[in-house]
């Protein structure tokens, strides 16, 4: 397994290089000028030109690329053109809210979606099945921000049980952390609950007709054990794949939830950076996200071995 792990990590290096090159070229070829953001509305063209020179943006593109690449090889992701803050410092500031949100959302997703999917498959064709499936259509269809506003209206404004916005670190205490993460995590998880419930149901339906399930029932096992120990475990591989990629998607796609709940996370950072054409921040974030995807995919592959003894690396 170790050699497999090492091979996969080494294989990620050319992937990361291609991502770096692609992102760099795409940004430089798109219109926009960070100097204009720095200088403000009233700056004259002369002032803009001087700032561009000071930032090195007037150098040839290949030269800028190799400067950035040599920085990367030294572990330096560069400095924001706009705020002059180190990119890794900015990422560190925003990492905890996004990761916390994604982890809590994925926990909600697994706790809610997997049992719902299992129950829907178990009672295939019943009212319960139809209810879960039609609810999942709603989960897919209603925009995330609408769900967020509805939850805020009910739990924060009407009932006043939870704050309307903001994020508190887990290090500030479990209470303050939890009260601010519940609503955004529920909001973010809504679409994934719908997706994974349907996925679980479909996978379960495939295995529930298998001979070993009939055998398990015949030898008198409780239905709960049949469903969760025998059927779910055999249906787990596609479910784990969707959960894993869902987690990666959450980390890279939380911007709407972050905006509705005013959570200072990576999603808002990358949108701000794109609007300001803050090249080093965009490049750094996309590269880190790509690395994260590679890592998550690797972990998903490794986890197959834990649920399915037939898979060995």
């Amino acid at each position, binding site marked *: 397994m170790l050699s497999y792990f090492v091979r996969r990590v080494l294989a990620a290096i050319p992937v990361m290089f291609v991502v770096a090159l692609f992102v760099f070229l795409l940004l430089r070829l798109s219109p926009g000028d960070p100097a204009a953001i720095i200088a403000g509305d009233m700056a004259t063209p002369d002032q803009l030109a001087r700032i561009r020179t000071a930032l090195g943006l007037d150098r040839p593109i290949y030269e800028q690329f190799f400067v950035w690449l040599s920085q990367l090889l030294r572990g330096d992701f560069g400095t924001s053109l706009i705020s002059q803050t180190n990119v890794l410092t900015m990422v560190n500031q925003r990492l905890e809210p996004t990761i916390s949100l994604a982890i809590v959302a994925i926990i909600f997703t697994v706790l809610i979606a997997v049992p719902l999917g299992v129950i829907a498959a178990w009672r295939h064709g019943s009212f319960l099945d139809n209810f879960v499936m039609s609810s999942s259509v709603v989960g897919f269809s209603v925009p995330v921000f609408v769900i967020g506003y509805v939850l805020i209206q009910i739990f924060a404004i009407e009932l006043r049980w939870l704050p309307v916005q903001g994020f508190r670190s887990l290090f500030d*205490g479990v209470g303050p952390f*939890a009260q601010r993460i519940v609503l955004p995590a529920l909001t973010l998880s809504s679409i994934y609950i719908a997706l994974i419930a349907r996925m679980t149901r479909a996978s379960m339906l495939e295995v529930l007709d298998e001979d070993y399930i009939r055998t398990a029932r015949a030898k008198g096992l409780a239905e709960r054990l049949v469903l969760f120990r025998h059927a779910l475990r055999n249906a787990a591989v596609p479910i784990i794949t969707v959960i894993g990629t869902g987690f990666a998607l959450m980390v890279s796609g939380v911007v709407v939830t972050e905006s509705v709940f005013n959570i200072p996370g990576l999603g808002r*950072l990358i949108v701000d950076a794109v*609007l*300001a054409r803050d090249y080093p921040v965009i490049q750094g974030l996309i590269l880190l996200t790509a690395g994260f995807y590679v890592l998550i995919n690797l972990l998903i592959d490794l986890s197959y071995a834990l649920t399915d003894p037939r898979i060995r690396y």
Partner: protein
Amino acid sequence: MGEMKVVFRRTAVSVALGLSVLAASAPVSAQTIHAMMHSGLRVLDPILTTAHITRDHGFMIFDTLLGMDEAFKPQPQMADWKVSDDGMTYTFTLRDGLKWHDGQLVTAEDCIASLNRWGKRDSGGQMMMTHVKSLVATDAKTITMTLATPFGYVLELLAKPSSVPAFMMPKRLADTAPDQPIKEQIGSGPFRFVANEFDPGNKVVYEKFADYIPRKEKASWTAGGKVVKVDRVEWINMPDAQTALNALNSGDLDFMEQVPQDLMPLVESNEDIATADLNPLGNQTMGRMNFLYPPFDNVKIRQAALVAINQADILAARVGDPRFYRECGSFYGCRSPLGSDAGTEGFKATGDLEKAKALLKEAGYDNTPVVILQPTDVASVSTQPVVAAEALRKAGFNVQLQPMDWQTVVTRRASQQPSAQGGWNMFFTNWIIPEVWNPIVNPMLNGHGKEGGFFGWQSDPKMDEMRGQFAAANNDEDRKRIASEIQAHALKEVSYVPLGEYQMVSAWNKQLDGVISSPVPVFWNIAKQ
């Protein structure tokens, strides 16, 4: 199924109890003002950028030699001054007890370095410096400025509350090249910047500067005593206005600098929230043409465009609620000291399509396309191009409205190429009135053309000559007369199209006491109950 019901009931009770416990543990913060400003702070150097949020940040941590009061008069702030009888020598004396945030004393040398850096970046400062013969420290607390040629606007420029104010910094920072950002945020203002809590675009924290000694006079705009009555001020940026209003209504937020006009009913219905227009001068919205290429290199066609557009339509689309806008034909703002109707007769954007058609015919307009840049991602400037384009089409213009994000607009408008090669013919933007309220600071009333002119590059030696006369005038009567003459001349030339004024309303929790009116949002004088 009975077992399932019990499980559901238990789960529901647990969730409700859990949420109640969480709600009970909500933290309370005292003596901290949580404010949402009009934008997130990203650029920290208030001399490098003209961005309003950076100017506002500057007023928190930096101080100015002079402040400006609500009567538009310069007043002593860090320094008192004397002017020689011939008006050619200004002597500024620093008041006692001024310290930088690192504990060092403020010296005249620091201030001279600061003035020199500011004089290289600010357009008004640049103009002033062309008249300065020498700027020297006579002693540790005295700065002497000697003019080579008359310039009557020194005090107003040093006190100006618009973008790029003359902020004072320690010499080691002020010696930074004007096109490079300063590396530290050390000022001598009433608040101290908390560097380790700065999260660009999201949060910035200021603490009361314990060693700051405020003036004794009552606070008025940026003049008078900057008495800090809270321990901390936190600016929190929220990307969603609805979320910010929810936070204000629930008490998470104490102050919101700009409430979108369409959301005003949500705060006006809450009796715990106060609302006011803290900047009664308001904002100007306007359109600027490119003077380099057809069709707007022809003055008759510029005039046709000016009269074709209707301020009332632009303002209704931009603002909506008539309580918050007014028509105004003046370049300087109708509530500012120099605001007047001079030259507006026949040169106001009133939607006179017949006159526009006649002017186009007289000019021999040949259907040359008018490329208008239309930002789609910034609400404050997204409607004006659409409404203007419709009016211009009705008048007979061939209009190409090109949608793009604001970043692309600011990049594209810097292009001096023809519109077919990545250039443009017209764009729209907004200003706060102190940025346009006189011919020296108003960037569009500059006839320098391609070399040093504002985007659009109007070349107008007569305008520059008149601006020179305005700068040399040393009394209000002469200034007003010359400003009116410039306005009449610039309207005839259509230096730009004033499209009216609008107000931005601030809202705050009534726990805050002492919020003062100012063109710059300030946090001194405010106590939190």
